[in-house]
C-alpha cells in the first residue's frame, strides 16, 4: 500500500515545495490548509506521516499534534519551525513530535526526515505483523487441512487474500468461519493492520449502528463522548461482519450504502468519513435462500458475495477430524507440558461422530477429555460422546492405520477422576432429568472437578491447573466456557484473566 503523507501548511509556496520535494510514486500526498482540515482528512483516512507548520489559522501545529496522537498514538508527526528557533524545536519534541524541520525548507533534509519517519512507521507495522503472526492459534502454520476439500479451501483463501475484494464466508456454526476470515487478513498485504470482528447478531439494531459506524458526542442518551465504530477501528485492515444474515432490512440498506460509498456516517454525525477497510462477511445460513425469501437485499448480497467461500461441515471432510484432534492435543501439550494421546478406539469414535457443532465441538470434546482423562491416553470412554451424535456406520471410514500404533491405556491412578463413576452419574442424571443434555452434564462434571482442584489449591490457579494435568491457559479457557459461577467463583475473579 502507498504511504500516505499529510502536509499541513497555509502558504502556497511551501505547500507546493513540500508536495514536490516528497513526491514519489509510492506515496500519496494530501495538502491541508490548517489543522482542522488536516484532522478531518486524517479521520477520513489515516496517514503514515503528518508534516505540519506550527503557526496556522484555526488549529495550530501543537494542538493538531495532540489531537492526532489521541487518535493514533504512535503516528510520526514532523513539525515545521523557523530556522534558528531552538525553543520552538525543543517545544515540538517535548510535545511528542517525531522530528522537526526548519524553514526555509532544505529539501534533502526534509526528504531524509520523512524517510526516517516512514521507516519507523514501517518498523511499527512489521512489529505488528510479527505480533499477529506469533499469535499462533490463527497463524498460517496452525492450519489443519488434511482433506482434499480443506486443501482446496486453503488454496482459495491464499488466492483470495491477495485481492482486495469483499468475501462472503458461508458455513455451519463451528466450522471455523472466523479462522478463515483471519487467514484472509493475515495472508493479505493488510497484515499488521487491524483485524476487527463483530457479531452482528450480538447487538440490538440501534446499538449495532453505533457499534459499526461510531457515534458523535451527544448523539443519544449516554453518548458522553465521540466514539469510533468498527469500520473506523479497522482502518487499513479487515472487518469481519459475522452473522450477516441476521441484520434487518433497514440496516441492510445502511450497510449497502457504506460499502458502495466507502464512507461511514457516525450516529449523530454530519460529515461522512472515508474508510479503507476490507469487508469479510460470514453467515451460517444460506444467504441465497434468504434473498429468494425476500429477507435479504439482493444488491447487498451481490456486493458481499464478490468472492464466495463455502466451508464444509466437519462430517463431510472426515479426514480432517484426527489431524484436528491431534492439533488440539499438541496445543494443549505446549500449554501444559502434558502429552496426551488418543487410544485407537477414541480415534475411531472421533471419526465416527457426526459433529453437529463441527470443529468447535471437536475442540471442546478434546479439551474436556484431557481434563477428564485419568491417564495420558484418552480412551473412547473419556470422550463421552453421545451415541446419538454418531454418524451412520456406512459413512464412517475406519480409523487410519497409523492409529493402531497408539499406546494402550495405562491403569488409572487410585485418586484420579473416575470415568465409570461419571458415566454412572450421567446415566442416573439422564434418567432423573430428561431435559439435561450430555454436553451440559459433562460440563458440570468438569466444572465440579475444577472447583475441587481450585478448593484444594486454595484458589491458586497455577497449582489447580497442575493438579488437573492441564495448563493455566486451558484452565482459564474452561473457566470462561463454563462460567466462573459454575465453579464457585465470583464474576469479578474472572475479569481480566489472560486468555
Amino acid at each position, binding site marked *: 500500500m502507498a504511504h500516505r503523507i499529510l502536509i499541513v501548511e*497555509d*502558504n*502556497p509556496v511551501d*505547500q*507546493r515545495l513540500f508536495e*514536490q*520535494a516528497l513526491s514519489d510514486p509510492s506515496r500519496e500526498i494530501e495538502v491541508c490548509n490548517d489543522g482542522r482540515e488536516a484532522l478531518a482528512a486524517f479521520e477520513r483516512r489515516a496517514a503514515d506521516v503528518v508534516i505540519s507548520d506550527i503557526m496556522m489559522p484555526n488549529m495550530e501545529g501543537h494542538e493538531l499534534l495532540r489531537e492526532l496522537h489521541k487518535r493514533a498514538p504512535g503516528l510520526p508527526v514532523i513539525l515545521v519551525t523557523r*530556522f534558528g528557533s531552538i525553543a*520552538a524545536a525543543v517545544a515540538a519534541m517535548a510535545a511528542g513530535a517525531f522530528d522537526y524541520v526548519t524553514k*526555509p525548507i532544505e529539501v534533502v533534509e526534509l526528504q531524509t526526515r520523512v524517510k526516517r519517519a516512514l521507516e519507523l512507521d514501517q518498523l511499527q507495522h512489521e512489529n505488528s505483523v510479527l505480533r499477529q503472526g506469533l499469535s499462533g492459534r490463527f497463524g498460517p502454520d496452525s492450519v489443519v487441512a488434511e482433506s482434499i476439500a480443506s486443501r482446496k479451501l486453503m488454496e482459495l483463501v491464499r488466492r483470495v487474500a491477495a485481492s482486495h475484494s469483499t468475501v462472503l464466508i458461508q458455513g455451519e456454526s463451528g466450522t471455523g468461519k472466523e479462522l478463515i476470515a483471519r487467514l484472509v487478513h493475515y495472508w493479505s498485504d493488510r497484515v499488521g493492520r487491524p483485524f476487527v470482528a463483530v457479531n452482528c447478531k450480538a447487538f440490538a439494531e440501534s446499538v449495532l449502528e453505533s457499534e459499526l459506524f461510531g457515534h458523535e458526542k451527544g448523539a443519544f442518551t449516554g453518548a458522553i463522548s465521540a466514539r469510533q465504530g468498527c469500520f473506523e477501528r479497522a482502518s487499513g485492515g479487515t472487518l469481519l461482519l459475522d452473522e450477516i444474515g441476521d441484520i434487518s432490512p433497514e440496516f441492510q440498506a445502511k450497510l449497502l450504502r457504506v460499502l458502495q460509498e466507502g464512507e461511514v456516517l457516525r450516529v449523530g454525525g454530519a460529515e461522512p468519513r472515508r474508510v479503507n477497510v476490507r469487508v469479510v462477511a460470514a453467515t451460517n445460513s444460506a444467504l441465497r435462500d434468504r434473498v429468494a425469501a425476500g429477507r435479504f437485499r439482493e444488491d447487498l448480497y451481490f456486493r458481499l458475495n464478490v468472492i464466495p467461500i463455502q466451508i464444509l461441515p466437519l462430517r463431510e471432510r472426515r479426514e480432517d477430524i484426527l489431524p484436528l484432534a491431534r492439533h488440539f492435543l499438541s496445543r494443549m501439550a505446549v500449554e501444559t507440558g502434558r502429552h496426551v494421546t488418543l487410544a485407537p478406539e477414541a480415534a475411531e469414535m472421533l471419526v465416527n461422530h457426526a459433529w453437529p457443532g463441527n470443529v468447535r465441538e471437536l475442540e471442546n470434546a478434546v479439551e474436556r477429555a484431557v481434563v477428564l482423562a485419568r491417564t495420558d491416553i484418552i480412551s473412547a470412554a473419556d470422550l463421552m460422546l453421545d451415541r446419538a451424535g454418531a454418524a451412520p456406520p456406512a459413512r464412517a471410514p475406519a480409523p487410519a492405520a497409523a492409529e493402531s500404533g497408539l499406546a494402550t491405556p495405562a491403569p488409572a491412578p487410585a485418586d484420579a477422576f473416575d470415568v465409570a463413576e461419571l458415566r454412572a452419574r450421567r446415566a442416573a442424571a439422564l434418567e432423573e432429568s430428561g431435559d439435561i443434555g450430555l454436553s451440559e452434564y459433562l460440563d458440570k462434571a468438569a466444572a465440579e472437578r475444577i472447583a475441587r482442584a481450585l478448593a484444594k489449591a486454595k484458589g491458586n490457579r497455577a497449582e489447580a491447573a497442575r493438579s488437573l494435568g492441564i495448563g493455566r491457559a486451558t484452565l482459564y479457557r474452561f473457566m470462561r466456557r463454563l462460567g466462573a459461577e459454575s465453579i464457585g467463583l465470583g464474576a469479578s475473579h474472572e475479569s481480566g484473566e489472560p486468555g
Partner: protein
Amino acid sequence: MSPESRDSRGDHAAGAAGDGAGGQAISRARIDRLRASMPGRESVVEELIAAFLADLPRRLGAIAQAIGRGDGRALALNAHALRGGAANFGAARLDDLCGGLEEAGARGALESAPALLEEIERESGRVREALAALHAHHAADCVDGAGAHGGAAQKSSGNSR
C-alpha cells in the same frame, strides 16, 4: 512561536538579485540550491515563484485588513505565511520586516504596524520585480534551450552573476 530574526545560513553572500538602494531583494544562491536539490524537476522553482507572486497581493491585502481591524492574531498569521514563502527565495529583508510585523501582531502591539506595512509593500515590490525577472529569464532560456530544463537553469544562473 516567537518570531526570530532572518535566515542566518549565509545565502546572501553567495549571490544576489534585485540589487538596488536597499541591497539584495532575493538570493540567487538560495534559489540555485533549491533548484539543484530537486534534480530532474528544476522547473518546480518556477512554479514556486509563480505561486508566491500570485499569493503576494492577497497576503498584503489580508495584512492591511488585519491592521485596519486591529486583529493581531490575523496579522501575525498572514505575516508568518508571507515570510515563510519569501524565505524560500532568500528574500532576507522582506523576511525580517514580516518577522517584525508577526511579532507585533503576536504581542497585540499594532502601533508600529502601518509603518512596517509600508516598508513591506516597498520591499515586496523589489522582491516581485527580482522574481519576475528571474521567472521571465528562465522562461526565455527554456524557449532558447527547447525545454532543456537542466541546461536552462545552469545558463540562467551563469548569466545573472
